[in-house]
Structure formats: C-alpha cells, structure tokens
C-alpha cells in the first residue's frame, strides 16, 4: 500500500470566514498516483487547491503532507516543503523569459539547478528553443509547458495543477495530459483539478467529484467513468456520463 502523500480531512474554507465555499472536504492522494478532482462550476475545486496552497483561509479541518501538518501554511513556504502548484490562469511571468521563469522555479533547489533543468527540458524539449522569449509571447499550450516546467524545477514531491487543459484545443489537451503522465512516471505525485472529466479520468488512478463545497462521489477512475451519479452531478439528469 503506497504511502499517503496528501491527506485533506474535513476542511472548511472560504475567502470570507462567514461564507465558506468548502464545507467539510476529505480526500487523500497516495504516492505515485494521479488523482483528479471533478465537479461543476462553483463546486469549490479551485478553492480546494488554493486552500491547500495557503491562498484561501481554512477555518476547520487539517491538511497533512506526509507526516507534516501543513494546514494554513504560508504560501511561499510550500514549495520548499515539496508541494508545487500550477494555477489555472496567470501561471507564468509574462514579462520574464522562459529561462528566467524556469530559474525562478528552483529558488530553493539551486544546487541541483543544472540537473533539474536538464530533466525538465527532457520532458519538454520545446522549452529549450523558446528559452529567450518572453513567456507572455508564447501560445497557450507553450505557456502551460512553461508553467508546469517551472513547477518541476523545484523537484517537488506533489504537483497540484488547476485545470491544465483550460483554453486548449482537444488535441493540445491530450498532449498536456500525456505530459502529466510522463511527469508522474518520473516520480511526482499529481493532484489535478479538471473540467474535462473524461480525458482527466482516463489518465487518473482515482477521482473525487465535488458539488456545492462537498465531496459527493469518489472512487477509482474506471468506475467513475461509468458511474451514473457523476453524470447526474454534472448534467442534473439521470443520463449516463459517457461523452466528454
């Protein structure tokens, strides 16, 4: 049984303490897994990741990273602890070059900079030739690569990604998903939030479905793909969720 990398227990969180968005969420991520969090808009998926990252206040519950309690940890200490986060929007420094973006990723890992940079470039070979361009001038898919690449520069144990396929064409989205599988294969555990349920579940080990700030369904990815309850939560009907 692989170790639990991340354990979220009964977390209540929100931007405003009197108005919680997450109303008692529990989930866990085990070593080497890709776990996806799904759910309709407003369910609190992004808020969950932001709460783990310390950007949204947690009023109840705990978050454990390995043996360490990281509930309410200050955001800038997260990466040093081994948790990397790729937000959905504004996830690169547009005015800095690709190389500079990557260099910023390894602030706390500077000894291993060259080795890690090599690993990231092996994973995303395109980044090498884009090196000196300002990140803001890249296409959506390229920017996504920079964002994930930068997160990997810190050699994290856990990578949290918020909607990696957002704004990308289906073909590019597939590329991104296959890249995430490669990332996992290189030894990084992944917690992912996604709107594109089908494609995400196809690369995941397990999934959780959130709605209205609470976790409604969870299980291994294969069963979720054919679970009618999932379809209901998304589409509000008893339709089987077979189409992406």
């Amino acid at each position, binding site marked *: 049984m692989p170790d639990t990398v991340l354990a979220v227990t009964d977390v209540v969180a929100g931007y405003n303490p009197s108005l919680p968005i997450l109303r008692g969420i529990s989930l866990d991520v085990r070593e080497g897994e890709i776990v996806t969090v799904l759910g309709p808009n407003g369910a609190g998926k992004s808020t969950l990741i932001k709460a783990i990252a310390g*950007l949204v206040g947690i009023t109840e519950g705990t978050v454990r990273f390995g043996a360490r309690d990281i509930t309410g940890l200050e*955001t*800038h200490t997260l990466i040093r602890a081994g948790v990397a986060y790729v*937000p959905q929007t504004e996830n690169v420094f*547009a005015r800095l070059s690709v190389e500079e973006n990557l*260099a*910023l990723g390894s602030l706390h890992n500077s000894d291993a900079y060259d080795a890690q940079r090599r690993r990231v470039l092996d994973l995303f070979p395109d980044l090498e030739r884009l090196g000196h361009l300002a990140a803001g001038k890249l296409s959506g898919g390229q920017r996504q690569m920079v964002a994930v690449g930068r997160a990997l520069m810190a050699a994290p144990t856990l990578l949290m990604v918020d909607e990696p396929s957002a704004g990308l064409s289906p073909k590019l989205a597939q590329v991104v998903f296959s890249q995430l599988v490669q990332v996992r294969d290189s030894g990084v555990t992944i917690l992912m939030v996604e709107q594109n349920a089908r494609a995400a579940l196809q690369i995941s080990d397990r999934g959780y479905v959130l709605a209205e700030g609470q976790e409604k369904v969870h299980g291994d990815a294969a069963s979720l793909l054919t679970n009618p309850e999932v379809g209901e939560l998304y589409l509000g009907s008893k339709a089987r969720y077979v189409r992406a």
Partner: protein
Amino acid sequence: MIQFVADGIVNAALIALGAIGLSMTYNILRFANFAQGEILTTGAYMTLFLVTVMGAGIGSMGPIAFGWPLLISIAFAIGATSLVVLAVDWLLFRQLRDKTASRITLIMAAFGVSLMGRNLTTLIAGGEPYYYDFYIPKSVEIFTGVKVRPDDLAILAIAVIAFVILFAFVNRTSMGRQMRAVAENPTLARINGIDVRAVIRWTWIIGASLATVAGALLGHNTQLRPEMGFDMLLPMFAALILGGATNLYGTILGAVVIGLTEALAVAVGLSGYRAAVTFMVMISFLVVRPHGLLGEKE
C-alpha cells in the same frame, strides 16, 4: 542654446537616480510613495553629518570639487538612510499592508511621513541652507559656446555607473529576478516560494541607496535645505509617468525628458515656473499616452 542640454542632462541624472526608487516602490509595493523626496533629503543630510564628523571636508579630484571623502560619506550615508527607511516601513507601512490597507491609505501615510520628515529635518538641522563645502565652480568650454563644469561630468559618470550596477542587479541576479516577478504577479511569486518580505526590504534598500546618492549630489550641486527632496517630487513623478510606470528604463528616459524640459524652461526665462512646466508635460502625457513612452498599454 545647446547649453540647456548640458544643464538638463545633469538635472536629468539626479531626477533619474531619485525616480528609480519611486518606480520600484510603485511596482513592487504598489503605491505612489509621496515620501520619496524625504529619502533624498535624508540621504543628503546624512552625508552632511558624516562629512562633518569625518572632518576632512569633501576632498577634490583634479578639477572636480569633490573627492573620496565625499564619496565615502555617501557610502556610509547609504547604509544609514537605508536603515531609516526600513524602520519607517516596519513601523508604519508594513502594519498598514498587514491590515490590507488600500493604495490611498498608503499614499496618505506617505504624505504624513513626508510632512514629518521635512519638519524633523528642520527640527534637527534647522531651516537655513547648508553646504558641504564652499567652492567656485569652474566651467570648461567643451565646444563652441557650451560650457560644462567638471563636477557635472563627474555627477553624470556616477549616475551612469549606478545605473549599470542597478540593471546588472535587476537583470542578472536571483533577487533581481524575484523583484521583477513580484512586480508582475505577487501571488504567483509567493506560489514559487519567493519571500515577498525580503523582496520588499531589497526594494527599499535599492531605492534609498540611489536616492541618497541623488540627494548628496544635489546638495553638492546646489545646497541643502529641508525642502530639497520635496521639490524634486513632482519631477520624479513626472519622470515615472512619462517613462511608463512599469518600466525602469522608461523612468530614466522620462527623467531625461523632464530634465531637459526644465533646463529649457530656465533657458527661455520661465525659471520660476519650471515645476509648472513639468506638470504641464506630465498632464499632456496623461491625456495623450498614459502608459508612457515605454510602458505597456493597460
């Protein structure tokens, strides 16, 4: 007529040195620091104090009417002024930031600090003008009809050296990168492990250091008065706006334009109005091109 260019460039160099700090606090701390003038003044008076304490005058280097004693005093004054600035941030601005104060509250606090600073200077040093040393500037004619003073060239050289060091720091060091990252997106910076508080400290230190140099050289070039930095505030803001608030190179370019404009105003007999002329130029830019010469369109 070209004389005004020579005069204007020196003016521009001093405005630029002071405006860099203004630009950095604007982009990284996200407020218009109305107390920036006071940092210049404090730097100038700290230098005066050190020159007096050292007792060796300000020295000379060939035809230049200042030398190592002044430069060493400036170096120490940089340290002293930085400490004062960090203390004020810690006592006031950081508390306000922690209470998520609005931009306007921060500006108001800066205004208060500015007023207090000017009056503290009057309190401690008195309101009459001071001089580092008495000297008679000798002009040298470099080509027909244009006279420059060796001191002006020295000031220019110091400013250029300062800018070269500044841009090397901003573009090539890790902290420089972190500062640029925070200026662009503080949340993403924190996600990447950047300690924004350390970045803020460096921002104050760099701004204060350059402002100290500006204040001391301004004091040497003219005189020291409690209002000296405050009088530079409008030109510095104008340089910031003209250049495009988000771009450091723009700030220097803006300072050049303002410096030349003020010198031109003096040359055509509008000396008393030169701050008003600066203001008109600034307003014109706000109307026509609010993102400045090198800034990004919003």
